[in-house]
């Protein structure tokens, strides 16, 4: 080994002062805001949370000799698809209204945000109520073998996420009424809407898997 082989000076050194100033300015502008970035990372984490539940579902389903397991005619969820289908449409619609709210506040339209988010919250609550009603109509429980366990765990934890989303939307609404958001300052609104969209996407996967591909 000789000295010439040693990398004595990293290649990326020696910016001019102008370059340094430029870097500092770029820092000040800085990409995505912290709350939104944090929320997207949290969503990535939630993806893996549901991955664990989905992994259990697929693994148990692959192990089962028949799916849905024999012995309970109620396991055929396609017979129950009407209400969940309506709920799915409601949740998709709520994502649309949520996004309308975002577009409104980006324009600085506070009233538009309030209106859109109120509708979103109402749709979210209706979804939860509809799901609870749906549970009450199903002829099996969480203790009915792997089918009951996976069904209620997947939909139940999704429901819990919808509930959390409704609470977050409520906080946004409350803060919005207090006049805390503007066209320039509405990171919390953006973050909440991303979460709401994510919850929507999870439901579409669940609906497809549990009801259509059952």
């Amino acid at each position, binding site marked *: 080994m000789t000295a010439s082989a040693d990398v004595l000076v990293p290649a990326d050194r020696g910016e001019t002062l102008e370059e340094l100033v430029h870097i500092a300015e770029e820092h000040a502008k800085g990409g995505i805001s912290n709350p939104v970035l944090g929320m*997207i990372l949290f969503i990535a984490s939630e993806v893996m949370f549901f991955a664990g539940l*989905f992994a259990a579902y*697929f693994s148990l389903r692959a192990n089962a000799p028949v799916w849905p397991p024999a012995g309970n005619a109620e396991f055929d969820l396609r017979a129950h698809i009407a209400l969940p289908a309506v709920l799915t449409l409601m949740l998709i619609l709520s994502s649309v209204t949520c996004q309308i709210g975002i577009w409104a506040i980006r324009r600085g339209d506070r009233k538009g945000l309030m209106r859109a988010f109120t509708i979103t919250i109402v749709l979210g609550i209706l979804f939860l109520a509809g799901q609870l009603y749906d549970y009450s109509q199903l002829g099996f429980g969480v203790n009915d073998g792997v089918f009951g366990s996976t069904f209620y765990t997947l939909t139940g934890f999704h429901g819990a996420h919808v509930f959390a989303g409704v609470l977050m939307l409520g906080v946004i609404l409350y803060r919005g009424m207090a006049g805390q958001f503007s066209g320039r300052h509405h990171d919390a609104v953006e973050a909440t809407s991303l979460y709401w969209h994510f919850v929507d996407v999870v439901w579409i996967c669940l609906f497809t898997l549990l009801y259509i591909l059952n």
Partner: protein
Amino acid sequence: MIRPRTTLLVAVLFLAIATIYYALSQDAGGTTMLVALAIGMGLLSYTLALGSPKG
């Protein structure tokens, strides 16, 4: 430093691992987690690269 689109290679990497894994083992559970990991990794690294200041 790295263009956000380049970071999606991480997702491709894990999709490749998931594919190989499924081809070899036919294990539904593990494959689900690896595919989800590809999505999670992709989302995470893409936003981090997009969201962070240059340099």
